[in-house]
């Protein structure tokens, strides 16, 4: 985790929101968007979407929402609405 977050920092890629990433994508969490409520921000934090954490986009549901992500060794799903509030730096490739 440490090495990948360093890479992300070194390359200082553009910040996007997690919802924009396609399945198969990988990114490093920067933080939650300012418009996220504090309850939501802390819940996402508790689930592992903490700054420097690496997120893999696993797959979307057949109806397009929600999406399964892998973060801190667990797979969990978020709806687009919440994934739009997580700011990440995508990894190339």
């Amino acid at each position: 985790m440490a090495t990948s977050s360093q890479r992300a920092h070194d390359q200082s890629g553009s910040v996007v929101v997690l919802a924009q990433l396609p399945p198969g994508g990988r990114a490093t969490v920067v933080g939650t968007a300012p418009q996220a409520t504090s309850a939501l921000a802390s819940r996402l934090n508790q689930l592992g979407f903490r700054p420097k954490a690496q997120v893999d986009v696993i797959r979307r549901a057949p109806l397009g929402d929600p999406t399964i992500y892998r973060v801190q060794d667990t797979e969990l799903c978020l709806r687009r609405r919440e994934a739009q509030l997580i700011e990440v730096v995508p990894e190339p490739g």
Partner: protein
Amino acid sequence: MTACHDVDAGAVTVAGIRRVALVGSPNAGKTSVFNHLTGLRAKTGNYPGVTVGRSVGTTSVDGVAVAVEDLPGTYSLDPISPDERVVTDLLTGKYPDIDRPDAVVLIADSTTLRRSITLIGQVLRLDLPCLLTLTMGDELTSRGGRIDVEALSTALGVPVLAVVGHHGSGINGLRARLASFDQWQRPPILPPSDQQAIDAWGQSVLDAADYVAPQPDQRTRRIDRVLLHPLWGTVIFFAVMFWFFQVLFTAAAPLRDGIARGLTYLGTQVAEHIGNPIIRGLLSQGIIGGVGTVLQFIPQIVLLFLLLAFLENIGYMSRAAFLMDRVMAMTGLEGRAFVAMLSSVACAIPGIMATRTLPSSRDRIATIVTAPLMTCSARLPVYTLLIGLLVTSQTRWWGLSAQGVTMFLLYLGGGMSALIAALLVKSTVLRGDLLPFTMELPPYRLPSPQAMLAAMWSAAKVFLRKAGTIILATSLVLWALLNLPVREEETRGLSSTDSTAYVMNHSYAADVGKAIAPVFTPLGFDWRTDVALLGSLSAREVFVSTLGQVSAATDPDHPRQALTTMTDDHGQRVFTAPTVIALMIYFMFALQCMSTIAVMRRETNSWRWPAFAFSYMFVLAWVMAFAARTIAVGLGA
């Protein structure tokens, strides 16, 4: 066992007994450890004032009883939802009327330790005797991870044990240490409180324990590739749900019929051997009938919980919720509510009990108060009778059987109204969810038989003890209303159907029926229909037999013929097309089932929600039935 009382009021343990609380995040294997420790002797109830389930059991260590409390799963001690606040308040001694536990056993999944180390740090800061139990160690190793349990214990400053909750190995070691918590090692320095500092603390603890996180589970990946595939995943989902529903609906039926037959036999035996008509009636119909109503639900409830526990423990339930979430989101609910709604098509009672899988209490209540609108199997005999009065079996609409089309429309109407009602409830009374929808998808695991048995047993026990008594009491009251006062003098010499009809038509229920008649007159119901409506409160299908009895039908269970010709006090036909339509619509919406109300009371821990559900469904039923009747009359039906 001896130290436990009923926990509904929150009074669980007798003073003096040692109390240990289990704390851990959802999916950490906490309940499995709890079941292994306490066996099937857990008492379940609610925390006072909230819709959060509470389980307390006892375990014996060298002859000393220790109370073990399974706290709700939580990710953090900074509560976001009212449900999570329970854990924090209880551990800090702020919960009204419940003392702080004497010690804490932390349960953490060793495959996700990087996430749960924060919770571990927060719990250590409480400065209670604390012991960490690591679960899923076998999985950690097989997926290429590792941890040094000794070193972790040294780094944390508390005892650490490894158990495999699944097989129960390591449980005896845990049990042996439960009573001696005052000798547990305590951390020399408590973890920091600041968020950033606790992250750094967690990292250093895991480094010291030589922790290597596991690789993603390849088997789960492969299974998910099929089960969550846009096409195959959807096909399998519908197949699983069809199977689920099929088992619930059909496999429970023979058991249910068997119970019914046994009780009928018992009833006839009683009837033959007891002379006094009141005692005879009370025993053979009131008590045996009431117990029968309660027992008939048991096969369905046991099966539902067996299936739910199987799907949940194997890991499919969260996948099903993932697939259905988009659909349920339209109603303001989430994917996990789907199963409860589907179960309600068999019966609202198992459906309401299935809402326990929903983490948000708002979602739970919204599902509980709307699920009874789904067309349950008890409505089927009522609809069959009413449809028979409305259209003949030969009638065709667009080339289809008119009876079939009507039945389909009634099912569709029930389902749609449940979803619309959920949307309305979620956007008004239960508005403003603090929590986003988040759901873990645990790796697929073979379920342990003990976990499934425990789930089944506790559901059946809760239903029998908490709801059973209310159902039995209402059945008795309804029996008394319909059969008293005794009319032995007046019915002498009458045939048995005529005498039943006479008794019912002059019973207390008839008085009630006549008293409430003005309410239902606009819908076209006469007072005898109202008596049958009253009878149907014990179970909707009773409507058919009660109507059969009041109309003195030769075969009270198939009263169609007698009803077609039944006339009111003015000689007008009672069951005209508009009235039959109004009755159908009324049954589609009305919460005409005391058993459902009893279970709602049990699951929400208050009379408020059952009262709310009964009222809104009654108003809805009345208004819609009136509108349907008015339209039908207008169209000249």
